[in-house]
């Protein structure tokens, strides 16, 4: 059973589970450097903000569905969730490409998918009670946050690398909480963690939307 889970996590997940996010509720406001601005209250800017929030929250819900199914040994459900998760990854990359061009989109997708691979590693580690694998995956995810921060910072000078990395770390922590809760079989705790994780994504989506509007005010005017 464990072996089956590992195999199916390792194979299918690497191709499909590519969009996992991690989540954690942040009680406060967005960091000052990335605080929301009134600029995103108008039509196009608001649409951007809403669109990014939808995509990032969807990412968490689908990732949680995939990890939950995987840990529960529900292979068909896992594959479906992982497939949907990858579609979400592509949609997020498309959104990046719509702002920063085809090259950026092409570079972003494998970078984004990479953290899903690390989440798969962590989930396998949890499923097999392999602490070493879990620790390695967490370490990889933490290192990944710097890559993600560097990417967005390079694309948009209004997004400080360290701030983005920190926000993504919270995402990693909150998703890890989801997986840990799922592994214990405590459904109430798991779903509470999912809500926290999904809620945290606003802390990434809002500042990203604001920074894009600030970078391209003409494109999002009106």
């Amino acid at each position: 059973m464990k072996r089956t889970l590992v195999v199916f996590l390792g194979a299918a997940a690497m191709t499909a589970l590519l969009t996992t996010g991690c989540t954690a509720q942040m009680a406060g406001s967005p960091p000052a450097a990335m605080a929301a601005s009134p600029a995103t209250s108008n039509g196009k800017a608001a649409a951007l903000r809403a669109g990014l929030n939808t995509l990032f929250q969807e990412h968490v819900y689908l990732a949680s569905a995939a990890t939950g199914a995987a840990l529960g040994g529900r292979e068909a459900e896992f594959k479906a969730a992982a497939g949907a998760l990858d579609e979400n990854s592509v949609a997020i990359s498309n959104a990046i490409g719509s702002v920063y061009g085809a090259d950026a989109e092409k570079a972003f997708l494998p970078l984004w998918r990479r953290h899903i691979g690390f989440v798969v590693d962590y989930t396998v580690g949890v499923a097999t009670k392999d602490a070493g694998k879990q620790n390695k995956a967490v370490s990889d995810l933490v290192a990944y946050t710097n890559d993600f921060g560097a990417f967005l910072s390079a694309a948009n000078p209004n997004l400080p690398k360290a701030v983005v990395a920190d926000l993504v770390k919270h995402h990693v922590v909150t998703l890890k909480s989801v997986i840990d809760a799922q592994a214990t079989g405590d459904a109430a705790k798991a779903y509470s963690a999912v809500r926290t994780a999904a809620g945290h994504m606003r802390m990434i989506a809002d500042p990203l939307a604001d920074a894009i509007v600030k970078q391209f005010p003409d494109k999002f005017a009106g």
Partner: protein
Amino acid sequence: MLAMAMWLGLVGTAVAAPDGVDVQLFTFRPATQDVKAGVDVTWTNRDDIEHTVTSGTPEARDGRFQSPLAGKGATATVRFKEPGVYPYFCERHPSMRGEIRVH
């Protein structure tokens, strides 16, 4: 290595050479660079993260050259003496790939 004598070196600042390749937004730009034999090609890292210039592909490294690009502004230079096609990639981000075509 082999007949391709090359010179690898990290230099401090970021002034792209005429036959240079920018590393920006996790992309080698241009992805394909055509140069004449004997020319130095310099990669300049514009990203605030470490990349590498590693010859070959992630699936088939060829060991011809390997150099870190330690952070924003770091450079690496390789001299290509022999005509041929030289693929390369970033070891930390294997989806980043490029190619030098030496004529």
